[in-house]
């Protein structure tokens, strides 16, 4: 009896009830999710059904048109959902890293916070500077949204489930995402603001520099798979039973690091270095327009997760689990994992300086990825001599991992940043008046 009293006192009863109800809720969600997922296991059947339904009542072109409109709506609604949920996830997770609560007032667990933010942003005044180039100032917030959505096209969600099944998938994503560069420059230049101009020049220089390592890392993906189609790349990884990220870790690292520079995420977000250029290229944009810029940054982070998943992490395959769980759920799960990694990076790392970033791109990443590309080309030549890749591909993968570690160490030892600089950067005036005498005992930071 005393035991009963101890366990089921007023507040404790509520505590246990809460725990049990959460457990029951999770169980119901898992069971319902299983049946739901079995019902919607292959979404391509639905699209095929719609296509056939329209085809019976009209001609082929109209059916094609209708199904592409439905696909576009699907992609855009997914991106919209990502923008809403992603901003909530990012703020909550960052809050967990910084040991605070995060948004938890609007709706359950603060889930409605993004919607409240969107309504607030809409009600804010949109200022246009008097001396700005009015037409050019209007274009960027609208135009920067298009690449962020169009680049989702060739992403393979599941077998037979991608919006654009084209043979030049990688080149298409590369081309579409490059459109961001001139748009950012338009935004900075048309603001007629010193900070915006400087910020956009820096951003464009950095994005342009990091596009080359990205293309070199994608070349090594193309040379081993022999295709640029995303679905075929995923299938290649499954038939050879190796993840490309394991086979060429340096390409994965290059692609990931350089892409964080492309999308202005935190180790490399010098586009908005507050202490130097206030807010970078979108300094003059306010209200909904600034909101669109921020939304695009968030959407691009999730897009990077999807690209890394399909190119390097074997897409919708996960050790046979894809037979029980819908493949697109696995794909989204991997994407979200990469996105959480990005949030983790944001919470952990400080911002790199611009000169560090540029030096790293041109003096380390580009030469080393060319070496990496050659090594992989030689390995592909050797692999093609044999009928089946078999155990050899794992030996090469192990070799590549050690090569990756060795290249970084050796390259940073031999070609340190200052090696080929024609003149040493020194504070001239301080040297002339003897200020460097006092600095002799101090070790240089560089």
């Amino acid at each position, binding site marked *: 009896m005393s035991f009963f009293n101890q366990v089921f006192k007023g507040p404790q009863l509520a505590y246990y009830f809460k725990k049990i109800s959460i457990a029951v809720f999770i169980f119901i969600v898992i069971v319902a999710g299983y049946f739901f997922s079995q019902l919607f296991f292959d979404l391509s059947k639905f699209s095929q059904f719609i296509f056939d339904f329209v085809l019976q009542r009209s001609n082929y072109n109209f059916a094609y048109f209708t199904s592409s409109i439905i696909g576009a709506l699907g992609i855009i609604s997914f991106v919209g959902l990502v923008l809403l949920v992603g901003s909530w996830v990012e703020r909550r997770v960052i809050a967990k890293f910084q040991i605070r609560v995060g948004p938890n007032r609007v709706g359950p667990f603060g889930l409605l916070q993004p919607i409240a933010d969107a309504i607030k942003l809409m009600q804010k005044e949109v200022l246009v500077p008097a*001396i700005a180039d009015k037409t050019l100032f209007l274009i960027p917030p609208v135009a920067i949204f298009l690449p962020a959505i169009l680049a989702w096209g060739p992403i393979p969600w599941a077998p037979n489930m991608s919006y*654009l099944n084209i043979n030049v998938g990688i080149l298409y994503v590369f081309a579409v995402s490059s459109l961001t560069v001139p748009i950012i420059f338009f935004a900075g230049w048309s603001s007629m603001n010193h900070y*915006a101009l400087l910020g956009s020049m820096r951003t464009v220089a950095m994005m342009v520099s990091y596009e080359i390592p990205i293309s070199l890392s994608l070349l090594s993906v193309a040379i081993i798979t022999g295709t640029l189609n995303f679905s075929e790349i995923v299938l290649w990884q499954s038939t050879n039973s190796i993840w490309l990220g394991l086979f060429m870790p340096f390409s994965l690292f290059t692609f990931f690091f350089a892409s964080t520079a492309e999308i202005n995420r935190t180790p490399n977000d010098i586009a908005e270095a507050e202490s130097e250029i206030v807010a970078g290229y979108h300094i003059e944009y306010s209200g909904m327009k600034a909101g669109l810029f921020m939304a695009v940054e968030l959407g691009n982070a999730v897009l990077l997760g999807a690209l890394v998943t399909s190119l390097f992490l074997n897409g919708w395959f996960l050790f046979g689990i894809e037979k029980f769980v819908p493949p697109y759920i696995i794909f989204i799960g991997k994407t979200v994992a990469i996105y959480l990694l990005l949030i983790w990076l944001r919470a952990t790392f400080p911002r790199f300086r611009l000169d560090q970033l*540029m030096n790293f791109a041109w003096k380390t990443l580009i030469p080393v990825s060319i070496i990496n590309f050659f090594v992989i080309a030689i390995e592909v030549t050797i692999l093609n001599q044999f009928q089946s890749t078999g155990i050899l591909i794992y030996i090469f993968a192990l070799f590549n991992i050690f090569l990756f570690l060795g290249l970084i160490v050796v390259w940073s030892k031999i070609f340190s940043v200052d090696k080929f600089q024609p003149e040493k950067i020194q504070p001239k005036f301080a040297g002339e008046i003897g200020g460097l005498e006092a600095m002799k005992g101090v070790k240089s930071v560089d």
Partner: protein
Amino acid sequence: MDSVEKLLIQYLPVLIAAVIAFFLVFSALIGSRLLAPFSIEKQKADTYECGMIPIRSANTNIGIRFYFYAILFVIFDVEALFIFPWAVSFIALGPESFIFMSIFIFILLIGLAYAWKKGALSWR
């Protein structure tokens, strides 16, 4: 003609998605226009410069180092676009093509080493 049409109709979904996305963004901006306050004060339309009245136009000269990077970028980006078709058909072309492509990349690497030596890559 027929094959060209087939190729173009592959990219029709891109156009459709672009149009729908454009309308989505445009409706957000229209909503902002309808909901947001709208003032015509002259002071508010000044460009931002840390609270001061802006000095000079921002339409100024830009440092030469940006152009170095732009030129190098064009060279290497075109290089990458040349290599992509080769990389896709690498297995079919055989090992001889590897030697030709290495000569091509080696020439570009000499260019990169020259730019490095001249100090075009050091951010000052």
